[in-house]
């Protein structure tokens, strides 16, 4: 695979060609500064920014980029957590937010066609209004885009019952380097014709093509739901409670867990309050038909009692439930109250082994004295392991890097994976070889090469060693 190593400054003739395609190219310092970051808070200046408005424009852009060999970085809302939308080698940022039409919602076949710039939360509202349900719900759903969600295969709290973005993508329109428009997948519940390129492109982090249309599978909206908040005297009790719930054959929509440091980031006005001696918390949501919810709810509450819960509370109104989920979604950014910098990993372990993982974190915390927070989707074993630190302190930074290294090693030894939903981007590229053996990685590089022989599309991402 060819690598673009030096940042290429887009010359005047390229800029004017781009302008002819999209009508507007941003190149001022002011604009570049505002498309240089994403939610990793790292910064790489692009050379120019365009906002295509249709598939044809995207195709022309990728043809031009392939001919002139300049890097192209697709960008949705720029809310990714591993640097997928960063122009690490400069070049052109292609912002997809203006392709934001919900083209069709087929009520009979429960299928929706959307453009990639549709904001996930707006799509949620639209389908809900029609009595339908699109389950993937990343914390960023109020502002992230469906295109970005597909490119990163975003997850969310309901994966334990409903899976992740890839489980809802039926088909895609994708423009590949050179400008060809490919159509993958189907509009039906089943389909096995040819290789499953839909799954390949979902989660490919903008390295294989630019998504221009998405066909999504929808579900009927569950009739009702109930949120429970449960506090425990120790992380261990909470983790064991999770295993118990699953063992009993109960599959809630969501089982989120928070350790004591994450609890401290919850607002004081959380419905039901927060007990002083709470060291761990579960937020459990059950959905389905009302009678079934009542039964499952009391079963889960019994199990919580058996696992020494300090407080168990059913949300009284939908407003309370919303307040609880809003608080949960705000944790990740709120962690900055501990320190100016964050290292955030979203490892996954088999959920029965969550207690082992929690023990390991305790051990590392005691050994290093670093501020570590764990919270996440206990139902599916996806844990947001976070170290808060001041990166300017070299000593602490070094310690933190070692901690991450041993967390990754331990995760893999438990049969887990390095990333559940954030992707690799540039943040985790250096660790990829821990999980993926050299032959598999070589095949992945060949796949990348088949889509993008000149290496123009989102260079520097996923593969180790592509960015210094």
């Amino acid at each position, binding site marked *: 695979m060819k690598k673009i190593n030096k940042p290429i400054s887009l010359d005047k003739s390229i800029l004017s060609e781009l302008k002819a395609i999209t009508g507007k190219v941003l190149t001022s310092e002011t604009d570049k*500064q*505002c498309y240089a970051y994403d*939610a990793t808070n790292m910064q790489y200046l692009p050379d120019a920014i365009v906002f295509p408005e249709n598939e044809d424009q995207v195709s022309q852009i990728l043809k031009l980029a392939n001919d002139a060999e300049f890097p192209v970085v697709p960008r949705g809302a720029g809310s990714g957590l591993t640097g997928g939308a960063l122009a690490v080698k400069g070049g052109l940022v292609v912002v997809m937010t203006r392709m934001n039409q919900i083209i069709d919602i087929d009520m009979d076949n429960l299928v929706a066609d959307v453009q990639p710039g549709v904001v996930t939360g707006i799509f949620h509202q639209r389908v809900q209004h029609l009595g339908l349900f699109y389950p993937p719900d990343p914390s960023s759903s109020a*502002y992230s885009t469906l295109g970005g969600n597909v490119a990163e295969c975003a997850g969310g709290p309901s994966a334990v019952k409903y899976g992740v973005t890839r489980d809802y993508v039926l088909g895609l329109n994708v423009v590949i380097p050179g400008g060809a428009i490919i159509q993958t997948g189907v509009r039906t519940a089943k389909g096995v014709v040819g290789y499953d390129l839909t799954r390949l492109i979902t989660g490919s982090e903008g390295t294989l093509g630019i998504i221009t249309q998405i066909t999504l599978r929808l579900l009927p909206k569950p009739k009702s739901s109930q949120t429970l908040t449960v506090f425990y005297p120790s992380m261990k009790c909470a983790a064991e409670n999770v295993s118990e719930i699953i063992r009993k054959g109960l599959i809630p929509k969501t089982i989120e867990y928070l350790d004591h440091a994450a609890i401290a980031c919850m607002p004081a006005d959380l419905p039901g309050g927060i007990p002083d001696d709470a060291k761990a918390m579960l937020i459990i949501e059950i959905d389905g038909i009302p009678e079934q919810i009542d039964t499952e709810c009391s079963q889960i509450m019994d199990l919580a009692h058996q696992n020494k819960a300090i407080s168990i509370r059913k949300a009284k109104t939908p407003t309370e439930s919303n307040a609880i989920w809003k608080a949960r979604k705000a944790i990740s950014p709120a962690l900055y*109250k501990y320190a100016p910098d964050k290292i955030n990993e979203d490892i996954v372990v088999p959920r029965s082994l969550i207690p082992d993982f929690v023990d390991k974190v305790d051990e590392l915390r005691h050994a290093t004295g670093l501020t570590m927070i764990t919270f996440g989707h206990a139902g599916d074993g996806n844990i947001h392991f976070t170290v808060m630190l001041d990166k300017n302190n070299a000593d602490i930074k070094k310690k933190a890097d070692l901690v991450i290294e041993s967390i990754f090693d331990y995760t893999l030894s438990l049969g887990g994976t390095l990333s559940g939903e954030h992707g690799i981007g540039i943040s985790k590229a250096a660790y990829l070889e821990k999980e993926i053996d050299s032959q598999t990685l070589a095949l992945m590089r060949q796949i990348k090469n088949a889509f993008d022989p000149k290496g123009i599309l989102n260079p520097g991402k996923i593969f180790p060693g592509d960015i210094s």
Partner: protein
Amino acid sequence: MTHNNQEISYAGKCIRCGLCMSVCPVYQVSLDETDVARGKMALLEWEQSHTDIKKSTRFKQAISRCLLCGACTNICPNQVPINDCIQTVRQKISLNVKEKLVISSMYTFSNLSRSGYIFRKSGSILQKCVGKKFPELSGLHLRFPMASLSARKYIPKINAEPFTSHYTFTPTSSKKILYFTGCGANYMFHQTALALTEILKQNNHPAFVPENQMCCGLPFYAAGDNQKAASLAKKNIDIIEKFSPDIVLTTCASCGAQIHQWKQLLKNDSDYEKRARKIANLQKDATTFLLENNYIKNNLPDRRDAIIETIWYHHPCHMRWGETRLPVPKELFSFFDKVNVIYSDNQCCGNGGKFQISHFDLSMKIFETRMDLFRQHKIDRVLTSCTGCHLQFSEGLLQNKLPVSVMHPLEWLYLLSPERALQKSPGQRPKK
């Protein structure tokens, strides 16, 4: 300039999570990152080491494209004081010609308007100067844009005399109320001022309305002109203190919020700062005050079902966030069985004072985001407690060819009283 550096370091607290994109009215219309808080915080950080950028037109434009509505500040998980950061950088950048014109005319106006006499004289002179199309005018955003610069349709009637000039006050033994009218009620919306003062009189608790009160200073503050905003604050403090009130009532949410801003503006003057703090503690929204004191009973119609209408209630940003945060006054409508109130409008109207002048089309686009919902209901009336929102709805509804009357909740209440027929209200579509 430690103050400025402090704001910039606050900007450095922004972690670019992007949550502000979910609430920013400007971003949601433009989908441009230079418009949203995290983009602006990136620009502010960068400006710190590249001070030249302040001269760049694009930079100035980006900084000017903010309503200061406060939605992002409210939601920011890292509590970055975004409004303060933007206001601070506005102090440092030079304004363009059009903005200068607007700001200088605002200042001229606030100087002229110290007494009703001068205003009467100057009002007619100004009217001659700018021609027939005398523009909207208020303390919040007094504006004299040239007709050619403006696509505006709404021209409020400007009263020849300020409300304060013909108001009479008889002291009583109750707690002393001072009514800070703000320029909106004083020069344009006399009905609002009349409603409040009359209702108070009916309850034998009249308010003192100082005739020489000045503009609250918000337009200058929002434009980054802290010097003028501070000087207006001082003058107002002197005027208010003379009466030594127990309560300072406001009918404009923005004036109310600016009164709370005075202490911040005067923080380098410990004497004035202390006095400003005291006045901020006395400030109260007039509608809330009347409800709390059960002062509206005389204005209720005889029967609970006497009024049949659908109301669009807009809660001003200055009541939604910050020190002047208040719940939606649902209690006001609880006296009526057949008044249907739509509360779904929970985003900035797009006025933002000077913003509507410098970015008229964008401002209207932001306003129009609510129109689909608005049209779904047969709205008879819009109620809102802020001069800026009042003007914006008047303009926006006219642009959308919807002749719906806009007024302050107290004006509506005042018109409902048994002896005052609702027909008095202009623009009202009577129902049988």
